[in-house]
C-alpha cells in the first residue's frame, strides 16, 4: 500500500507499543499533586487488564526538574537515569514506562544523545559504576504512561462502566486536551502522532465516546 500526504506522515508517527512487562518509574509532580492518577494507572493496567508492571522501591526521581531548572549538570541527570536503567536490568525488564512526561522526554533525550555520542554513554557507565557499583542495559522501549493507556484504550472502553457522553442529550462530551511539552517536541517520532498530529490523548477521548475540540495552539 502506498501512503501519501497526511496518511504518509501519520504512518511515520505510529508507535509499536509493547503489550506487556513494564518497569515503572514514578513522577515527582504526579505523585505529589495527583497521586490517585498513579494509583489508578497501576490498578487499571494490573488488576483490571492483567498486565505485569513492576515497581522497585529503590527507584527515585529522574532529576528532570532539577535538570530543567539548571541546578544539576547534565552528567548528573544522566547518571541518575542510568541508575534507574540498572534497577530495571536487575529486575529483568526491558520496557520502561514513566509516569512523568518530563521524565519521558529526559529518558528519550539521554538515549538519543548517547546514540549520537557513544563516548558519553561510556563515561556515564563509568560514573555509575564508581558511584553505585551498578551496571545496566539500555531499555528496548521507553513509553509514557499515556502511551500505554492509549495502547489499551479499546480494552479499557470494553470494560468501562461509563462513556464520555452527556447523559441528558446522548451527545459526546466535548474534550480539550493538552499534551505535555516534553512528550514529542524534541523527538516527534517518539510520540503517537508526532508533534503535528498528536493523538495520544485525543485517541483515548475518542475511543471512550468523547469528541475532541481542536485549537490552534494544540500543535505549538
Amino acid at each position: 500500500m502506498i501512503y501519501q500526504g497526511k496518511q504518509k506522515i501519520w504512518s511515520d508517527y505510529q508507535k509499536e507499543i509493547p503489550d506487556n512487562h513494564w518497569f515503572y518509574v514514578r513522577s515527582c509532580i504526579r505523585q505529589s499533586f495527583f497521586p490517585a492518577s498513579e494509583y489508578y494507572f497501576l490498578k487499571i493496567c494490573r488488576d483490571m487488564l492483567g498486565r505485569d508492571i513492576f515497581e522497585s522501591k529503590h527507584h527515585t526521581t529522574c532529576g528532570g526538574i532539577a535538570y530543567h531548572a539548571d541546578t544539576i549538570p547534565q552528567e548528573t541527570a544522566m547518571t541518575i537515569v542510568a541508575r534507574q536503567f540498572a534497577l530495571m536490568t536487575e529486575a529483568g525488564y526491558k520496557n520502561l514506562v514513566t509516569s512523568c512526561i518530563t521524565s519521558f522526554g529526559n529518558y528519550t533525550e539521554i538515549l538519543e544523545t548517547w546514540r549520537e555520542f557513544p563516548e558519553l554513554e561510556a563515561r556515564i557507565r563509568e560514573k555509575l559504576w564508581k558511584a553505585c557499583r551498578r551496571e545496566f542495559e539500555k531499555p528496548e522501549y521507553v513509553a509514557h504512561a499515556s502511551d500505554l493507556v492509549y495502547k489499551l484504550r479499546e480494552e479499557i472502553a470494553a470494560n468501562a462502566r461509563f462513556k464520555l457522553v452527556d447523559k441528558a442529550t446522548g451527545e459526546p462530551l466535548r474534550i480539550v486536551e493538552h499534551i505535555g511539552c516534553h512528550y514529542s517536541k524534541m523527538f516527534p517520532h517518539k510520540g503517537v502522532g508526532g508533534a503535528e498530529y498528536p493523538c495520544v490523548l485525543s485517541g483515548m477521548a475518542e475511543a471512550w465516546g468523547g469528541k475532541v475540540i481542536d485549537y490552534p495552539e494544540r500543535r505549538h
Partner: protein
Amino acid sequence: MGKLYDELTKDYRFKEGLKTCINCGTCTAICPAAEFYKYDPRKIVDTVQRKDEEGILELLKSETIWYCGECMSCVTRCPRKNGAGLVVMALRNLSTKLGYFTESEKGRQLYPLTKVLTTNVLKLGYCVHPSTYKYEDHPESGPVFEWVLNNKEDVYARLGANYGRQGEGALRAIPQEDLDELQAIFDETGATERINLVEECSRKKAAEMGMTMEEYTKYTFEHCSRGHFNNEEGAI
C-alpha cells in the same frame, strides 16, 4: 580558559542545539516565553553562531538567557534542526560555572532553586515533595491544595499513596541506601561541586547587596523588578 565559544562547544546540549541558523525567526515566533518576556531566541542563537565573544559574555551576564522555559517548542519548528532552548541550556551552564549568573536578577534565582530542588532530591529522593512544599511560597497552587497540605496524611492515604512509609507506592520513604547512592552520584558527576559554587557565588553577591543569606534567599525568590515583560516600560 579558552574562548567562551570554545567552552560552549564542550557542552553536549550545544553540540545538539546549534547547527546552522538561517535567522528565520521561527523559534521566536513559536516561543511561549517570547510572548511574555522581552526575549528573542533567534538573537541569542545568532550571537552565539557569530562567535561574538563580547556578545556571548553579555549573554552570560544577562537576564535574557534565564527567560527560556526549556519547553523545546523551538526544536520542533526550526527548519534547520537547531534548538535555541538547548543553546540556552549550554549558556546557563557556562554562566553558572563562571559565576556570572549572580549578575542578573533572573540568574540569581538559581540560588533558591538549587537549595530547594537538590535538597529534596538528596533527602527525599524526588525533586518536589509535599513535606517541603510550602503553600506560602506557591499561592498559585490554590486553596484546595493548601487544604491538602494541611491534611496530608489523610488525603494522601485516601488517594492511594504510601505517604512517608516503607515499601512501594507514591510518596513512599526512599530507603537511606538509595539516598546514599544519589549523594554518591552527585559527588561523582559534579553536582555537589556545582551546589557549593552556587552557594559561594551567592554569598558573595548577598554581601555585596548588604543582605543576610536569609534575606537574599527570600528576595531572589520573590522579587521581580519591572521591565522583564513585554508590556512593561524600561529595561532591567
